[in-house]
């Protein structure tokens, strides 16, 4: 216990150095501002922060990314609150304004879970060191299958997104033999496809195109997520579970890509009551996804995949060794979550209402700025125009994926996991002397693969149950006036029927 306290204090000390603290606060502010601006999804925002992180020292860069991610969640909540017709000064029965509720929800959901992660992480990392390559492979397959199983929409398209991501990750020189793979003779591809290029192309450029198409047609594009009315406690639980399993149906509240309502889509607006619960879920999810990410190197959401990308940019491979070899970094990242929450508390309290005005900026004037910035960001990594060309390709791909209702997060997760997966498959084949049966006979491997299979089937069932919930017609939502009235969050709602069947 004392170890834990001293380690955590150490992390806070690391993060409180002037550079890191500055990066953390600026990151939080950038995240919240960017999230309020209309029409760009959360994942896209974090993708845009990657190149900035690249220009900073590792710890400051990671603190910036983590803080931006947390700030983004606050910003989304703030934007959703105003979108739902909230006006400053309206108080709830408990005397708390919805804004305060959101801050509380985030602190409970994000801060407490981050502390929990810090407490569990050393243990999980120790366990992870016991896993052989075969077990690691099975674990990764489990993560990917779970991701596909719980993503709404066609399972084939989800799997296709994963396989495409894995395939893209094999481009470049093979580390073991030095053979150039799938480079089509283009020398620039020898180093492989840069993760930042992929992320900005698929998420940011894809979003810009979608946003312009949507404003063009003056109609909604994409699905709007309807956060449902879970309380903060429930939201937190769901968020933790959702981070362990990259699960979409458990977190209708915490759905990530079109997080909250799409600002371009008036039909998908949330009610004020829903927002604190959804915020708690989102924050819990982000914090909890740090556990598999920091200890196992496994991203379970698109956001976590981007954070893994940020680690790799700085030459750090997230995994069980980080905690023992670079403890400052490990505890610093967790410290950054806490510091970001504190910084955001201050920002929300002082600047919240003024920041919320940013949402009125028109999307058309924002898109050129974001696009020009993306081009610059991509170029700045290698000073290579080819990367910008590659971004164009990924932008078109991203837009096609949006149109085809295919999850881009899965592509990013698979892309990050690809090299790790291949390395471990190869190693385990080598150890097993090419005999599949020896591999499958290992108990942990069998269990994980079976669990993946069960999850794949169960996920489909769960999704079928929640389909009705997602298609809730907009007119069922209470009117704006009614929402601003007393009840802010309904705490211990019974679980919706489709969640009752699940495995916890």
């Amino acid at each position: 216990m004392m170890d834990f306290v001293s380690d955590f204090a150490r992390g806070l000390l690391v993060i409180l150095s002037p550079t890191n603290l500055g990066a953390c606060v600026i990151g939080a502010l950038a995240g919240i501002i960017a999230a309020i601006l209309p029409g760009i999804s959360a994942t896209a925002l974090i993708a845009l922060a990657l190149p900035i992180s690249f220009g900073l020292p590792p710890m400051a860069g990671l603190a910036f990314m983590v803080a931006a991610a947390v700030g983004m969640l606050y910003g989304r909540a703030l934007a959703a609150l105003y979108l739902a017709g909230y006006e400053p000064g309206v108080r709830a029965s408990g005397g708390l304004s919805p804004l305060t509720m959101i801050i509380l929800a985030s602190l409970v959901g994000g801060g407490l879970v981050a502390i929990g992660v810090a407490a569990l992480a050393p243990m999980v990392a120790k366990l992870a060191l016991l896993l052989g390559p075969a077990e690691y492979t099975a674990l990764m397959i489990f993560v990917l299958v779970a991701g596909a199983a719980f993503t709404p929409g066609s399972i084939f398209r989800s799997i296709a997104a994963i396989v495409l991501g894995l395939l893209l990750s094999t481009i470049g020189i093979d580390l073991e033999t030095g053979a150039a793979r799938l480079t089509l003779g283009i020398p620039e591809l020898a180093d492989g496809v840069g993760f930042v290029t992929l992320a900005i192309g698929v998420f940011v450029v894809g979003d810009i195109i979608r946003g312009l198409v949507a404003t063009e047609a003056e109609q909604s594009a994409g699905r709007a997520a309807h956060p449902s009315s879970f309380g903060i406690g429930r939201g937190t639980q769901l968020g933790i579970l959702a981070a362990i399993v990259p699960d979409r149906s458990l977190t209708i509240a915490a759905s990530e890509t079109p997080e909250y309502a799409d600002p371009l889509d008036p039909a998908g607006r949330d009610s004020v009551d829903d927002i604190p619960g959804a915020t708690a879920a989102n924050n819990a999810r982000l914090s909890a996804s740090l556990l598999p990410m920091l200890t196992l190197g496994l991203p379970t959401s698109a956001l976590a995949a981007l954070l893994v990308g940020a680690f790799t940019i700085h030459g750090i491979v997230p995994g069980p060794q980080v905690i023992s070899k670079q403890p400052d970094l490990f505890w610093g990242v967790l410290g950054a979550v806490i510091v970001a929450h504190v910084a955001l508390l201050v920002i929300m309290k002082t600047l919240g209402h003024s920041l919320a005005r940013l949402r009125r900026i028109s999307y058309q004037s924002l898109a050129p700025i974001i696009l020009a910035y993306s081009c610059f960001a991509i170029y700045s990594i290698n000073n290579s125009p080819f990367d910008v060309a590659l971004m164009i390709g990924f932008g078109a791909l991203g837009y096609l994926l949006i149109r085809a209702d295919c999850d881009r997060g899965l592509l990013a997760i698979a892309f990050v996991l690809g090299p790790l997966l291949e390395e471990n498959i190869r190693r385990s084949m080598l150890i097993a002397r090419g005999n599949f049966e020896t591999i499958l006979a290992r108990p942990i491997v069998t269990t994980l693969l079976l669990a993946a299979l069960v999850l794949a089937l169960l996920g489909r069932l769960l999704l079928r149950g929640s389909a009705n919930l997602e298609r809730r017609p907009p007119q069922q939502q209470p009117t704006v006036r009614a929402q601003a009235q007393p009840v802010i969050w309904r705490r211990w709602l019974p679980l919706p029927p489709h969640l009752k069947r699940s495995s916890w």
Partner: protein
Amino acid sequence: VAALGVLLIGVAGAAIISSFELPSGRGFSMGPREMPFALAALLTVLGVIVAVEGIVRQRVVARASLWPLFAVLAAAAAFALAIQPLGLLPATALAAAITAGYALRARPAVMIATVIISVLAVWAVATLLGLPMPLWPREL
């Protein structure tokens, strides 16, 4: 959706063809070829399924204009072409201007403001992070 399926088949086909050139593993160890090859094969199958699914279950999808796609891609392409001869800031201005020219046809004043903000933002980040790249065209 069908288009995505076709694209997947195309990508997978290209990957399979180029993976033939790669050395395969010997004996117990896997070479660099197996992984891309297996993935590409899987992707081909999935591509066919996705394409068929797209054709069979035709959902009503609102037809969207392709112009935004072209405008954005053209802007990024212009940046890629302009950056080395012209330097960072002119290239940024060009990319922003093309996108803004498309998105804000009707509002020239906002358009100019947008371009200026883009250039300033890029300049600020490049300077703050001390990125080594020419901002302006090199003096002749």
